[in-house]
């Protein structure tokens, strides 16, 4: 690999891009359009949310409540915790969407509530408010009176579960949508543009000239893909700024983590684009293939439909997609203030995806016409 040849290809690519007004307009136009279109809520019903229990009362009645809530199928209580700090850590890492907290004086609060002598809620459910659908589901659940849940007749009580909404106290939909939108926009533009850019070289006959020169396939691919890394980061910036300006979407984690996660995701999308380019014979086919991978990603990644609500098979399939992992990363960092270290499994999954895709693409690339 020669830096000068690589640089020459990058420069050529940038010059071509500058003259390609339509692509240029799409780079800026797609983020803005999508941001405005998707800036409004999408709601869905949820089941089997991963959840934790912090039972500080440890009485027969508290266990009955846990069993009753487990039977609603809204929660899967995967964790039994001992300290409130554990709740925080699991939520932040994205391991759980909600935590049921039963205070030590649960029984007394329950009596106070039933006799209207106190206003402290006997139960607390801590919710990951960065997921719109999750908080919705928990709200519905909380509206069910505790006695009905326990099946003890007297159902004429007011709601006695207190919901503590972490991360999105205002329950504003754009706060949830905009971070995910970064993933949607990057997937749409990065995969399609790279696949098309590489196939274009072949379709227009430039490749026949190029492969008769000392240029290596690695230089060519890298040179064509590098400008898109920059473009992807510009798009991330654009969405973050617009999200902040229009919808007041917060950036709770570190900005470095946001860009690091985006960069890894951009590379994963580019790797997918490079792989698709080895399958496509024309730019049109490249576009079709890009779209073919785009739809399942947008539907199964958790951007539109809640991940926890999908059938098991769909969840397994979704684990393959880079966008699924990026959704976890970007929502975690932007909304929950999580760090990359908290979210390392998603990062590792993206890394594995990059290695596999590029591996296949390189194995399929030969410097010949046959």
């Amino acid at each position: 690999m020669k830096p000068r040849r690589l640089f020459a290809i990058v420069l050529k690519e940038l010059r071509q891009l500058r003259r390609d007004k339509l692509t240029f307009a799409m780079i800026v136009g797609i983020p803005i359009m999508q941001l405005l279109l998707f800036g409004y809520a999408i709601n869905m019903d949820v089941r089997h949310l991963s959840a934790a229990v912090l039972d500080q009362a440890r009485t027969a009645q508290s266990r009955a409540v846990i069993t009753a809530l487990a039977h609603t199928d809204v929660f899967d209580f995967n964790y039994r915790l001992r300290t409130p700090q554990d709740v925080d850590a699991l939520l932040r890492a994205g391991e759980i969407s909600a935590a049921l907290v039963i205070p030590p004086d649960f029984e007394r609060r329950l009596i106070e509530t039933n006799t209207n002598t106190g206003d402290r809620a006997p139960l607390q459910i801590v919710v990951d408010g960065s997921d719109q659908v999750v908080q919705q589901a928990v709200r519905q659940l909380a509206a069910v009176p505790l006695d009905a849940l326990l099946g003890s007749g007297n159902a004429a009580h007011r709601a006695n579960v207190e919901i503590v909404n972490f991360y999105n106290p205002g329950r504003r939909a754009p706060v949830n949508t905009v971070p995910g939108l970064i993933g949607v926009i990057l997937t749409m533009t990065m995969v399609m543009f790279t696949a098309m850019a590489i196939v274009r070289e072949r379709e227009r006959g430039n490749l026949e000239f190029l492969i008769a020169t000392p240029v290596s396939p690695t230089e060519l691919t890298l040179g064509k893909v590098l400008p898109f890394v920059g473009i992807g980061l510009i798009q991330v910036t654009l969405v973050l700024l617009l999200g902040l300006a229009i919808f007041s979407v917060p950036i709770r984690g570190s900005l470095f983590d946001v860009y690091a996660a985006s960069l890894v995701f951009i590379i994963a999308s580019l790797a997918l684009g490079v792989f698709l380019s080895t399958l496509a014979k024309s730019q049109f086919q490249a576009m079709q293939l890009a779209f073919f991978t785009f739809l399942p990603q947008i539907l199964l990644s958790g951007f539109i439909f809640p991940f926890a609500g999908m059938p098991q098979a769909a969840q397994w399939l979704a684990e393959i997609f880079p966008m699924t992992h990026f959704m976890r990363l970007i929502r975690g960092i932007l909304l929950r203030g999580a760090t990359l270290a908290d979210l390392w499994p998603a990062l590792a999954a993206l890394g594995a995806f990059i290695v596999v895709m590029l591996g296949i693409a390189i194995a399929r690339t030969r410097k010949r016409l046959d």
Partner: protein
Amino acid sequence: MPPSATRHSDPLVHTGKGDANAIVARGLTRRFGALTAVDGIDLTVARAQVYGFLGPNGSGKSTTIRMLCGLLLPSAGQIEVLGYRIPEQAEALKRRIGYMTQKFSLYEDLTVAENLEFVAAVHDVERARARRRIDALCATYWLQDLRGQLAGTLSGGQKQRLALAAAVLHEPELLLLDEPTSAVDPQSRRDFWEALFALVDAGTTILVSTHYMDEAERCHRLAILEHGRLVADGTPRELEHALPGTVLLIDCANPRAAQTALAAVPGIAAMAQIGASLRVLGTDAADPREAIRARLGAVGIDARIETVQPNLEDVFVSVTRERQGHAST
């Protein structure tokens, strides 16, 4: 020598510097599925010459050129180009050849200068030398005033000059040109050939494919390809002298009527009307002159028959007809 040791001009790998021949190929064959595009071609191209491939579309010219520069793998046969074994040492060869594709393959959305700068960089032409070369080439190929123009807006002749400039920018020893003049007007074609001979004078070997007879005439040597086979090769003069049959020119009032009348006369391989006369190519057996005179007399056509020098077109028609004769028996 293992195929992996191909990146640099290792003297052990690259032994061809002093060879008299730029290209040697034996039994070169390429199949695409059931189709045999190139069928057992033997080829020897001497250095500092223009070697032509003459043949109709689909005769295997492009496929052969692509195999010679390592872009396609041969199905069978041996190739040695500039002393490199192909396809094993194709990467090392690519630094020493220039390849001009049939279709314009530079970037239409880059300017003339940007294209040349890009080509210089991918060929590792050192910056200062690249600047000198680009200036010199722009002057030689009348691109000076077009440097800032997008390649897509150039005329056919201008594009072709740009493509040639790009192919010779790194001063290759061997230039492979695949139908370089197919989309160019006659004056541009003449200029282009002037440029080719200037390169040959400087020691470059040129392999050029064409389907124009006048261009084939200009080659030092040429090979005639048909259906993937090499049906004749030699200098244009050799090929013309080796033509087995006689060539007759029949001057008469109505050449078309004469052609119809002569259709069934034995000993005639082919006929073609050339303006007011009829050019008749005899088969390799006897002189068909008497049979022709008798037939024309019988139908009452008054004609003057003379023997003429065979030209390359006669050779081409003759060898390609022979092959068709083979196929039908």
